[in-house]
């Protein structure tokens, strides 16, 4: 399932409830391949809808979690990440008024970062994420690669029409920062900052579904 592969799978349900949400993935990479990651799920635009839905037991046959269940689930993930090798300084915030969830940590290398990401998925999916290396960093060629293995458009087509609606106004933003200057980026939709040390890519879920745009990218840094 596509949803299982998305970050914050535990909030898969919230995805189903809201037409508007944004996912922000920020990675600051040091020269040695270590760095810091912050993942944000922002459902604030849909908070009225979520508040009404939180009053119900289930929606579209999905059980609606209570606030304490959400907190418990999130705490479980944070705990797993804290116990991951190569990961330190894990911190998180849960804002159940605006429905904004963030998680950040330091990682020793991109392998550890892949493990962090895989924690938001099911076990089978997690293995695939690690095998496929969603993040990789080639020190010799100074190339940072963001990838994923899902055929999202195909997976989306397998979901029910009523569930599909939720992706209509969703967006995914990735921001990667480096100490060195960026020479080039393969994804033409990505924008390199004025300082050339940061790159941002914002794509709508619709564009991903229609295969118009992707969050995949290969960023070449100065040697």
């Amino acid at each position: 399932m596509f949803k299982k592969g998305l970050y914050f799978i535990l909030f898969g349900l919230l995805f189903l409830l809201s037409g508007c949400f944004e996912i922000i993935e920020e990675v600051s990479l040091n020269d040695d391949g270590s760095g810091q990651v912050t993942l944000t799920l922002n459902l604030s635009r849909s908070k009225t809808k979520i508040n009404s839905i939180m009053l119900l037991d289930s929606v579209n046959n999905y059980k609606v979690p209570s606030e304490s269940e959400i907190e418990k689930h999130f705490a479980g993930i944070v705990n797993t990440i804290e116990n991951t090798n190569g990961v330190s300084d894990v911190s998180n915030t849960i804002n159940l008024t605006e429905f904004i969830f963030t998680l950040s940590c330091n990682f020793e290398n991109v392998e550890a970062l892949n493990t962090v990401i895989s924690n938001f998925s099911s076990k089978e999916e997690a293995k695939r994420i690690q095998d496929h290396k969603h993040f990789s960093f080639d020190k010799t060629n100074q190339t940072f690669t963001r990838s994923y293995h899902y055929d999202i458009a195909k997976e989306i087509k397998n979901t029910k029409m009523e569930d599909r609606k939720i992706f209509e106004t969703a967006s995914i933003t990735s921001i990667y920062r480096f100490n060195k200057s960026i020479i080039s980026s393969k994804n033409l939709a990505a924008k390199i900052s004025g300082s050339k040390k940061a790159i941002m890519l914002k794509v709508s879920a619709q564009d991903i579904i229609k295969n118009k745009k992707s969050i995949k990218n290969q960023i070449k840094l100065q040697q």
Partner: protein
Amino acid sequence: MNKFILTIVLFASTISFAQSLESKIPANAKLVVTIDGSHLLELVPLTEFENYSVIKEIIKEIKEDKPHINGISDLGFDINSDAYYFYQPTDSIIYHVGLIKLKNRVDFEKLLDSSAQKKIVRSGNVSHYAEDSDLNIMWNDNILMLSGGMPSYSYFDENRERFEAQALNEDEGFYEIKNRVAGSWAANYAKQLFNYNGVSIASNQGYLKSKDNNASATLWIKSYGELMGGFMSSSLGMLVGSGLNMNYSNYGIGSVTAHLYFEKETARITSKMEVNDRWEKALKKMYSSKIDPSFFKYINENEMLGYTSISIDTEAFLEEYPKLMSEIYGGMLPDYREESILAAELFTLILDEEAIGELITGDMLFVLNDIVDKDVTYTTYEYDDDYNEKEVVKTKKESSPDFTIIVGSENEKLLLRLIRLGVKHEAFEHKSSYYKINLPSKTPFDLYAVIKDEKVFLTTSEKRITNIINNRTVSQVGNHKKIMKNNTSVIYMDLNKLMDKIPESELSEDEEQFVAYAKDNLRNAYFKTGKMKGKTISSELILETAKNRKNSLKVLLDFLEFVD
């Protein structure tokens, strides 16, 4: 000469045989559904019906295997006549039967696969094909009968040992035995029924009374209680293991009749339910009251999207309902009769029905006045030139319901005391002459309250609450006055206005089209529950369709076509 007379008699009997599928329905059938084919075809002629894409698709699919089929009329059915479904349970097996007239036997037989055709057993004019043990198909030149039997869970379970002793071999388990035995019963039943000549349902006065030539479809249930009893114990078997010896024939609800009508500008489903003396007495007391006419002062049909009105006698309701329930459940669960009576008495002891009846009279009205746009803030992010994130608060429009609730009360003093207590505990905020209810911060609307003229008013609009206090409300009730007065409860929606209010931003492209189409084709919808008439309580679901169209069935089929 004798031969000639015999031929005439035979011919005549064939005609009468052909005319009455009803004669095949035994008098003890528990439920009968009739679909009036000719009526439906009058509303939407076959050529128009076959033009709908769903039908075209089905025909196309059939045509892949059977190239000679070009339309519904090639299937061999006489779609111009009535078709029936009936349900006949016994203690050991439940039969479901469908009866359709045939126009062309040969065409119908062509529908069967060649392998199925080989399995047809012919005996004179009658053909029999058993798909498997579950479905028997029998037909002659005029009648097609499909019948299926579902073995009763409880019967087979209770007689398990006896059936297990009937195993054909060591490998045949209980489940296989059950299917084999039930299959042979079902096959015998089908044969008997096809040649049935006994007393038919047409001799049942209740059934005959349920007939209505204007209805496109009719449902008749002999006894709802009995049907439920049979259903629960036979097919589900749920209650067998629970030890609850439920007897639904004491439920108190008798026959149920429902009709489906497609008229020029309305599609309607009406239903009538007959109850026993005990229910009649209780329901008459509970539902005899009419909504307080002073409620109409606060209804303006030009400024509402829909409403729900309820008028019951709270005092009678609280007095009668527990007694009724204890009698029903005492009757249904004879082992727990004492418990249910005691529970009802305790309930009555604790409650002061009269006092509650004064506090809440039983007249209630919910009016959906509007769906309004409200500014709602949300948090998002902006980025500087170096893509550093900054949290910003933005505003967007969101729809919020604007409604009014009016509840009748004859004990203002007690209510005011309650409110004073609410103010003390900060549940209410005292404004000049009304109250603001302190709702949880996440509620998308405000709520104001006032007690006036033996009514409690709750509304989302501060302007409306002041209008109520200052007698500045506009009363424009129109036809709704009569509807509310004559019914115990009414749910009404002005679909046209309602569709208009759904914000486009909340809809996908497909939904937008759907809403636009619904707006052009649907008008008002009502669900009404009437007062008791004799031993009968009736309800009606009405959907008003566009005025400029051929009829409501056509509108609904066009709608389905559009949605598809």
